[in-house]
């Protein structure tokens, strides 16, 4: 199986990246802070406003290392792309399918069904791990939501059109996030979840989720590009300028597994504190520097976890799942499989 390669996250404000032979070197204020051989690295993500030498950019493009620039909140700014990226035949098929909702239906059914099923698994794990510490009402609420999601997932897998599926996805999200606060066992005065808010996140849980979703979105985008897709044109997410629709599609089924579960773990184990977040005058909450670093370390660790892939039946690192799903989607579009097998976590 493909190796799970490391990602370098560069968070220092004044960092400069350059190439030294077959190494990537990170400098801050002219002194070397880190060095890694290129063949060990799968991606580089730069927060804040660092620079990178053109020689490094070229070497990354050549070696298939994704080099991206993100804002401190994780918003995508730019990436370096080499001549090798993209596959015109696959992209043409992708566009044809995106223009024909009847054709894309089975893909979207799978994505929504898997996302809903995976949300349900998050609830079941919470019941298993903390059920005996919950109040009777809390437990009953999660159990009821879990049952609803079970049925929603099965209905989504046979839904008649994409518009219906968008509605079902929204309903499932509502059911799930309605009980999300109940799964938080940490300090309730610090971590309260008041429904999903994104622009901006209005509480610490939302700030954490948004940041993790940005990281996941980044990985999904890289995975799609590395198998030759256009990450902008999606099937579930309609086109909107500047939006990576297919990356959003791909990340749906992985959000509960990779991001939501990790957010709950970080909070419930007390790995994040109030001081790891900042609240601005308008009420927008974001991760502070130290908090962001702690989350990135946990994110990297989480991606190393092994699991059994439901379709391939192989053990692999969780961090490889976006790549494998992108691959399976491309194999479906190229005609190897008669559908897209989404990622279902149990």
């Amino acid at each position, binding site marked *: 199986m493909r190796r799970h390669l490391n990602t370098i996250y560069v968070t220092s404000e004044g960092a400069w990246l350059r190439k030294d032979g077959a190494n990537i070197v990170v400098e801050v204020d002219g002194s070397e802070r880190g060095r890694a051989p290129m063949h060990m690295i799968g991606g580089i993500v730069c927060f804040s406003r660092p620079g990178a030498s053109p020689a490094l950019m070229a070497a990354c493009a050549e070696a298939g290392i994704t080099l991206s620039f993100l804002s401190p909140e994780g918003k995508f700014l730019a990436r370096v792309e080499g001549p090798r990226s993209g596959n015109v035949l696959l992209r043409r098929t992708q566009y044809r399918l995106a223009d024909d909702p009847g054709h894309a239906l089975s893909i979207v059914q799978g994505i929504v069904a898997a996302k809903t099923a995976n949300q349900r698994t998050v609830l079941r794990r919470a019941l298993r791990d903390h059920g005996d510490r919950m109040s009777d009402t809390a437990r009953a609420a999660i159990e009821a939501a879990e049952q609803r999601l079970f049925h929603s997932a099965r209905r989504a897998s046979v839904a008649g059109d994409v518009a219906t599926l968008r509605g079902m996805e929204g309903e499932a999200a509502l059911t799930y996030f309605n009980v999300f606060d109940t799964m938080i066992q940490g300090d309730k005065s610090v971590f309260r979840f008041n429904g999903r808010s994104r622009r901006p996140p209005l509480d610490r849980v939302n700030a954490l989720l948004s940041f993790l979703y940005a990281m996941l979105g980044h990985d999904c985008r890289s995975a799609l590009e590395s198998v030759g897709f256009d990450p902008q044109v999606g099937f579930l997410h309609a086109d909107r300028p500047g939006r990576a629709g297919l990356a959003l599609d791909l990340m749906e089924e992985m959000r509960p597994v990779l991001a939501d579960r990790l957010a709950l773990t970080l909070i419930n184990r007390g790995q994040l504190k109030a001081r790891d977040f900042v609240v601005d005058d308008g009420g927008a909450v974001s991760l502070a520097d130290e908090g962001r670093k702690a989350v990135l370390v946990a994110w990297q660790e989480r991606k190393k976890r092994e699991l059994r892939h439901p379709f391939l039946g192989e053990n692999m690192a969780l961090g490889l799942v976006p790549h494998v799903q992108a691959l399976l989607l491309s194999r479906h579009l190229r*005609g190897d499989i008669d559908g897209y*097998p989404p990622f279902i976590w149990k």
Partner: protein
Amino acid sequence: MTAPPPPDPAAEDALVPLSALQHYLFCPRQCALIHVERIWAEDGATAEGRLLHERVDGGKPDRRQGVRVVRGLTLRSFALGLSGKADVVEFRGGVAYPIEYKRGRPKSHRADEVQLCAQALCLEEMFGTTIPEGALFYGQTKKHQRIVFDAELRRLTKDVAAETRAMIAGALTPQPRAMPACRHCSLFSHCQPERLEKPPVIRRWLAGQLAD
């Protein structure tokens, strides 16, 4: 002497790389993944092969005992629809003698011979000569193996070239076939031969996953 007229651009565009023949003989799906889908997988084996070629290509032409040695010569044949590079071509008294360097050892299948013969056919077209033989050099055994371009090898090479070109022009990727050779394939993890050789009906598979 006047320069020859430039070739038809469409014919130039239709040329496929010489290396595709070898990929095709190893596995048509591997050939399609690389040359149709442009999947690039540099694993240990290909990186090592590239280093060997860089060393070979790096040298300057030299001359010893009346033999002129040219490295990295660009080859082309419109009859076969191929283009590429030769590792080494020795010109022995005006007759070209191609030598191809291979990592590893001689193989049971004829992919290396076909690639070398294709080089010879390119050289014949380019220089209007007949090339009776060439050699393969294997890194692991450090031995030259003389290859005679007989009628049978020429026929095989032409057939493989035609099949390869047709497959690439059709832009279709054959289904995988799980076989022992897959273990040595740099595209194994991309190809998923075991799972995709006889994949389940996805609708049924999904329903099974969603049942409790």
